[in-house]
């Protein structure tokens, strides 16, 4: 059974002329990694806010782990979802890293013994245990996002939503947090929904949903979607380096692979091709 089931969801902001999310329907199976992509203003973030009940839909339904999202059930539903937001600086409350991770559990009246154990587990999971007594403000962007992730993991969610969680990080911080999430997902069989315009983050997904003007316009595997080459820009994604290179080589009349290959496979293909010259 799908862990997230969204059907005919529509939401329009009071001042605007068109719905930000327009009749959207999709399912996510437990343990899947699904990326939602779209350019700035396409409706991605509105969709995320609807999923965790920060906004209430005008029409349509959301079922999370078998529970229909309503005003009455919103607190229960949020128990199953952890969300990491875009700006690491906007989500810290604790004076130390450990305090910050404990905050979500304090809200849930978890006992002190359990809390201490889970703070340690969560910080170990994201590789930030040695920073437990540090001030969150003094960490690098990537470290801050790992602490935010630990705070989420401490309450053991089934679903992890990443709302452009890597977009403010430098390339190193970005790969750092993505690797951590990948490991956690495998270990805990998490369902991951990542809202992103980062090509490397999208490439991690089992499938990608493309949203434009509040509607889903395409659903594909990363492999299939990256075949679009320069059209990916309009979808809010960058063109993968290997696709750019293939396009430029083809323009010079060079023999190129028929389908999208990632960098490693393209390098293999090219050196084999060279041997036939």
């Amino acid at each position, binding site marked *: 059974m799908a862990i997230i089931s969204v059907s005919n969801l529509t939401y329009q902001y009071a001042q605007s002329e068109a719905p930000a999310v327009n009749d959207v329907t999709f399912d996510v199976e437990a343990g899947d990694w699904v990326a939602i992509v779209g350019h700035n203003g396409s409706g991605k973030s509105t969709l995320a806010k609807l999923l965790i009940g920060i906004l209430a839909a005008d029409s349509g339904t959301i079922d999370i782990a078998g529970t229909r999202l309503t005003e009455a059930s919103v607190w229960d539903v949020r128990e199953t979802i952890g969300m990491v937001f875009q700006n690491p600086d906007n989500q810290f409350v604790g004076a130390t890293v450990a305090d910050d991770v404990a905050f979500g559990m304090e809200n849930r009246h978890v006992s002190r013994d359990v809390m201490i154990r889970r703070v340690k587990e969560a910080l170990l999971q994201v590789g930030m245990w040695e920073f437990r007594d540090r001030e969150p403000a003094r960490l690098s962007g990537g470290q801050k996002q790992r602490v935010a992730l630990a705070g989420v993991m401490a309450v053991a969610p089934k679903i992890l939503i990443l709302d452009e969680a890597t*977009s403010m990080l430098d*390339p190193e911080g970005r790969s750092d947090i993505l690797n951590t999430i990948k490991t956690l997902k495998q270990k805990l069989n998490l369902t991951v929904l990542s809202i992103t315009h980062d090509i490397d983050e999208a490439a991690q997904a089992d499938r990608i949903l493309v949203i434009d003007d509040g509607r889903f316009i395409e659903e594909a595997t990363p492999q299939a979607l990256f075949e679009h080459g320069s059209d990916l820009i*309009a979808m809010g994604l960058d063109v993968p380096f290997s696709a750019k290179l293939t396009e*430029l080589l083809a323009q010079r*009349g060079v*023999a190129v692979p028929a389908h999208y290959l990632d960098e490693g496979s393209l*390098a293999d293909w090219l050196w084999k091709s060279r041997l036939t010259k």
Partner: protein
Amino acid sequence: MEISFDKVGFWYQPGTPFAFQALKDVSLTIPSGQFTAVIGHTGSGKSTLIQHLNALLKPTTGRVLIGDRTIDAKTSNKHLKPLRKTVGIVFQFPENQLFEETVLKDIAFGPQNFGVTSQAATEMAQQAAKQVGLADELLTRSPFELSGGQMRRVAIAGVLALRPDVLVLDEPTAGLDPRGRRDVMTLVTKLQREQQMTIVLITHQMDDVARYAQNVVVMAKGAVVKQGTPQTVFSDANWLADHQLALPSAAEFAAQLSQHGFHFDPLPLTEEALVAQLAPQLPLKGGQHNE
């Protein structure tokens, strides 16, 4: 306008237990009319460096030459205001500083602060809005109704409205989608090429450094550890790895291909340069030979 640093040292909170040296013996030149990129790890002193470019910070030791002005520890805080107009700084996430009721008023706020009449400020704002490609119908909207990319452009226009000679940008594309990133970089290069504006860009995007910069300054632990053209700076992969800096994607891929018998000289830094050297080493489509 040229800016140069002569043995600049800078301490935060000097003489206190929290004293911290953020710049160490920094000497460098930012050539007039050129595009200079400043790269380095988080905490390497990049942001402290750029605040010296218009005397928001004054060196603790050494001096900074900004055009014909000399700034050192003894420089009075009076009469620094003209420098803030000549050297405009766009800080990180500048859209956080938007505050006015309309886009136009927000952009005109800077010139008005420098004593320009309200009408002239409005005209300067309109021109700056055009430069950054903001459509006229957006000018009467609240800046808070705009998308992230549009807000970023409003903030940049606010600095451009002062008509600076030098434009300094601290990670201007962070948090934007790929289209927004490309728009901002196109705008910045256009200002440099068409108006000979001096550009200083702090960035983590090595592909942008390779594509747009003429000079690169590499900072580490408060010191300048390398200065030169992108070709010079990116030529030593081991040195870069030691300083936790990445190669541009094209150079990285070329290095990978070199291990499989391909040959590149010089190391290509952009996709175009890579393809120019790579194509002759590959067979043509349909099995023809490429000689």
